[in-house]
């Protein structure tokens, strides 16, 4: 009887935390705070544009900030975003949420994984490995790229 009761209350706590996590992710999504998501949406739009506007400057340059190859016609917008990542000045909201996340992740002993990495692969989302003891954990150290 006691163990049934304690399991019930544990489930209660867990469910509340699950709602909190869902709520937090929902907020980040709706406020557009997930830079990775934004970048991917941008890339989608870019490829659509490139197909319909072949007249845009087609020469390719190397970005002096991140080293990526950027089409001349998209150079200015790219620099806006690329250089903006060095500063946290983008929006106050971002700062408060990631600052809180930084507090949590600092003490973590597990291998690092940065969700804001500037990798050019489109698959920046982590694979959901099981969090059971013994297996590899994902650690969200929100390093500033």
């Amino acid at each position, binding site marked *: 009887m*006691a*163990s049934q*009761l*304690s*399991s*019930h*209350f*544990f*489930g*209660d*706590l*867990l*469910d*509340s*935390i*699950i*709602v*909190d*996590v*869902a*709520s*937090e*992710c*929902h907020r980040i*999504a*709706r406020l*557009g705070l*997930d830079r*990775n*998501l934004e970048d*991917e949406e941008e890339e989608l739009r870019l490829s659509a544009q490139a197909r319909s506007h072949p007249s845009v400057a087609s020469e390719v340059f190397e970005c002096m900030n991140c080293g990526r190859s950027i089409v001349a016609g998209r150079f200015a917008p790219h620099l806006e975003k690329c250089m903006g990542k060095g500063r946290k000045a983008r929006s106050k909201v971002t700062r408060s949420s990631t600052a809180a996340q930084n507090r*949590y*992740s600092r*003490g*973590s002993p*597990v291998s690092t*994984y940065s*969700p804001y990495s500037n990798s050019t692969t489109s698959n920046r*989302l*982590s*694979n*959901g*490995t*099981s*969090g*059971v*003891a013994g297996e590899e*954990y*994902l*650690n*969200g150290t929100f390093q500033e790229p």
Partner: protein
Amino acid sequence: MFGVRRMRPSVNRPPTPDVQENQEKEPTLQETINIKLIESGEKERLMELLRERLVECGWKDEMKAICRAFIKKKGRNNVTVDDLVHVITPKGRASVPDSIKAELLQRIRKFLVSAAL
């Protein structure tokens, strides 16, 4: 002639609860303990402990990754909190490390013992 049997009612309805009965109902043991948990502040402490452990072990990051994948698929303006809750609940409940679950259960049991006195 066939023996007359009591006819079954054509509508199967549970008996209407007696209104008086409801008003006199005692709070369940669960409800009583829940109130004690909250009033003593222990529920809040337990929640913070569980939250901290789940962050440390990467459980939260895993849940966030699942959310992000779902959001990317559905489009960030088409997602509700409810969607996300349903998306992460099965995996969320199943992937809590045993050690963390044990730690919390032990603390809860300790509280139950002390609350019963």
